[in-house]
């Protein structure tokens, strides 16, 4: 049976549902730009919820990320953050965290310095903004109050003992406790299932009772990130009221609840703000005729064509399919854009995994002009309607530099601003 192609007309098509894609959607919504967001599943489920700007450079912990990105102009001049005004990056972060807070996932605002936040291994991660549910963890790491870290029987990869064993050296009153999640009898406990169950107030009461009786003299408790899915701030507040304790969440191993929260809240709220959402579908092809940019894709109901006036490519790297590693070279599969990369596969990785210099393959990616328009091999722009954002961009190492969200949010901001100027021209 032939299915009719459905057509969507929009001002801005956003390809990619990772951090850069949802940030671009938020910026488009705020500017009254009509948009369509599409792309395959995306790597959002792998986020901890922390929003890094720049946490490490040359193997050193960065205290002031604003100074850090200014320094990139000399130490890593091609870095996507190197050429951006710190004030504009701050504006991007503030706008994005406010947006998320408004739609239901509270976030701290960007401060002058990096925060020091918990990891599930009991190490410390530098980051710029954290979900409101994790804010008291940052404060606890600083002030070291009497604190119990709770784990749950059956929750793999999260050990309260591990966290306290590695932090107790300077924090004598830190205690581990492993408890049974209310209603969970045997076997594996899935964080996502537990999070959804805590949306029910009866379950919160049961959990609060256990926490209160097990917390001993602690005034503050840390739990794995599973306190609610759609209204985590309200779940946390209720648990604090019921227990009389300060509570914070600690990220779990990905894929994790904070990532699901972001994805679900975006999917729930943005369509009401006028954004077309075609989730979990891979764009098959993009063409650039005179009148509009055309994206071909399909969902269960048949083919879809998006006709857009402009497009942001936020397709991510290897994990999300924005880049592909062939036997001997790296490609950008959707448009065939030239990819900045090492000469040979020999040079992709250092010999030692944890070499502090990082691996050259992570610096591979798309080259753009100052307006984030991808360049062809002759140095000219591919099309004036095509912009690119996020970690698909070259010359940054989001993993080692802890700059993934920073690159995503700041470049999405600039790309949408540039698209906005083009659209209103």
């Amino acid at each position, binding site marked *: 049976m032939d299915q009719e192609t459905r057509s969507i007309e929009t001002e801005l098509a956003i390809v990619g549902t990772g951090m850069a894609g949802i940030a671009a959607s938020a910026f488009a919504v705020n500017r009254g730009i009509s948009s369509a967001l599409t792309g395959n599943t995306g790597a959002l489920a*792998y986020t*901890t919820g922390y929003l890094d700007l720049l946490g*490490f450079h040359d*193997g050193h*912990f960065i205290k002031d990320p604003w100074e850090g990105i200014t320094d990139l102009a000399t130490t890593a001049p091609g870095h996507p953050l190197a050429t951006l005004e710190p004030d504009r990056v701050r504006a991007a972060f503030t706008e994005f965290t406010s947006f998320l807070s408004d739609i239901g996932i509270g976030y701290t605002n960007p401060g002058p310095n990096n925060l*020091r936040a918990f*990891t*599930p*291994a*009991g*190490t*410390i*991660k530098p980051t710029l903004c954290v979900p409101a549910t994790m804010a008291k963890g940052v404060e606890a790491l*600083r002030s070291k109050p009497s604190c119990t870290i709770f784990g749950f029987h*059956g929750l*793999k*990869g*999260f*050990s*309260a*003992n*591990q966290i306290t*064993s*590695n932090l107790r*050296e*300077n*924090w004598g009153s830190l205690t581990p406790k*492993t408890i049974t999640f209310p209603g969970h009898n*045997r*076997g*594996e406990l899935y964080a996502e299932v537990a999070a959804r169950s805590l949306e029910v107030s009866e379950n919160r009461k049961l959990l609060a009772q256990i926490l209160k009786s097990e917390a001993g003299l602690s005034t503050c408790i840390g739990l794995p990130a599973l306190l609610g899915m759609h209204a985590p701030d309200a779940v946390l507040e209720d648990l604090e009221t019921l227990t009389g304790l300060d509570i914070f969440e600690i*990220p779990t*191993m*990905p894929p994790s609840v904070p990532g699901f929260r972001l994805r679900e809240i975006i999917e729930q709220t943005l369509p009401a703000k006028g954004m077309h959402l075609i989730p979990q579908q891979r764009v098959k092809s993009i063409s650039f005729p005179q009148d509009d940019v055309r994206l071909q894709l399909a969902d269960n109901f048949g083919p879809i064509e998006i006709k857009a006036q402009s497009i942001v490519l936020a397709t991510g*790297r*290897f*994990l999300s399919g924005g880049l*592909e*590693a*062939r*036997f*001997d070279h790296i490609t950008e599969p959707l448009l065939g854009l030239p990819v900045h990369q090492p000469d*040979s*596969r*020999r040079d992709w*990785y250092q*010999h*030692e*995994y*944890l*070499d*502090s210099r990082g*691996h050259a*393959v*992570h610096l591979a990616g798309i080259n753009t002009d100052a307006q984030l328009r991808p360049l062809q091999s002759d140095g000219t722009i591919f099309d004036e309607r095509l912009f690119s954002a996020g970690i698909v961009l070259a010359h940054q190492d*989001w*993993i*080692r530099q*802890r700059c*993934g969200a920073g690159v995503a949010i700041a470049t999405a901001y600039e790309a949408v601003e540039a698209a906005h100027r083009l659209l209103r021209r």
Partner: protein
Amino acid sequence: MATFETEVLIIGGGVTGAGIMRDLALRGIHCILVEKRDLCAGASGGNHGLLHSGSRYVSNDIQSARECRSEGAILKKTAAQCIEETGGLFVSVTGDDEEFGHRFPEYCRSTQIDCEEISIAESRTMEPMLSPDLVKIYQVPDATVDPFRLALQNVAHATALNNSRYIPHCEILLFETADNTVTSAICRNSQSGQSITIKAHQFVNAGGGWAMNIAAMAGCDDVSLLWSKGTLLVSHDRLTARVINRLRPPSDGDILVPGGTVSILGTTSVRTENIDDVRPTVEEVNENVLQGMAMMPILATTRYIRAFSRVRPLVQSAGQDDDRSVARSFSLFDHHHVRTNFCTITGGKLTTFRLMAEKTADLVAARLGNDEPCTTHTTVLPDAQGCQWTEPGASPRYCYTSKDPDDMILCECEMVPQSAITQVLSSSPGAGQDMNLESIALRTRAGKGSCQGSFCGIRITSYLYDTGFYKDIQGLYHMRDFFNERFKGMRSVIWGQQMAQMELAEALHCGLLGLENLDNHSEKGKE
């Protein structure tokens, strides 16, 4: 400083050392086996896992061919749990030396190895992935063997027989001698730093590639080795039911061996002087793929999850240029002019390890005045606790039958449950507090799947903190070292889906957990 006494100290925990330990224990002789790293750390663990029918050597090394034929038959009876009787094919493609192909059945006949010609049509039903350009196909009785399980069970059996002891992470620093005998070995435990003195009546050097250096430490200069580095690739999926050999004189990338759920392609062969830090290179990986795709085109596009290299010792004699033409047979040095209670066994191959152990144990037993005969050719190798988890099917089978929801699966690629980890830590050979993730990975399938341990390394570590095995930052160091070690085998095969896998792993290990900055961890804790 700890002191141990035994009748025989065996140095080197390869499959030969493990085999000697069991052979001697069966004769009622107590032994201690020491190993610088852990079981099968050298060539024993770095090969195809091919139980040779002997046909590979019929054209250039008749003695090895015969030894393989008879030893293969013995092991299929006595160590069946470590062996899969896959059968093997020799295949030639257009352009291969046709003369060699024609002579092959005659070679096999002269060494009494079964060899049957198969039609091209029939071979396609047997192995659909074979090249469309086949010329000749012969079927031979090749099989596969799991060297890790083999070594573990030999050690476990020896321990069960007479309390013979295996000590991993135990490096020989020097030998103490008196007149023309060795009296004791001074060792160091590389995990704890503890010094260990081992007194023995007899000393056996089963150091494989390191045998020359160990012999020299005892004052014996008559062992002269060359080293050949080989690199092999592990595919994500099993590509064939049988062993596939290229029907040509031995060369690069010409054997593909199934190993449970994967296939192993190799090898390259180059001379090396470096025996302690051998790693696969991108060039060696490319060469294997390039050569292998002639007989199996799918090797060009298949997903590889790992490569590994090993150094094979070749006992030197004059005038050999090509390492593949050096006889694969083993050498037993009795060193009787220099040390009357010290001997060295080296060379040889996995398939003939039992024979090597027998000849060595015969010498040692005679020197001890023990006249019990060797019984390893008839005594069936029993199963033992903590040794069965290296088999790909063992963990899933256990999980399906035990039906214990609380026994959670920590390695999701290979379905390794908590109880397997607990059992390995408590009762497998080498069990104890100085085990780490690498010890666990050697004794189970953890880390052998597509994620190569990047997820289960984290889950197992968390589990071990919860059980109290780890109490401080040691668990994080072990986790970091494990990922470093796994990476050595991944680096040269990272493309395609493995690139996405690797990107996620590094995001987790560095981006989230900060393992590359662990040395500054406590300093940061103080702020």
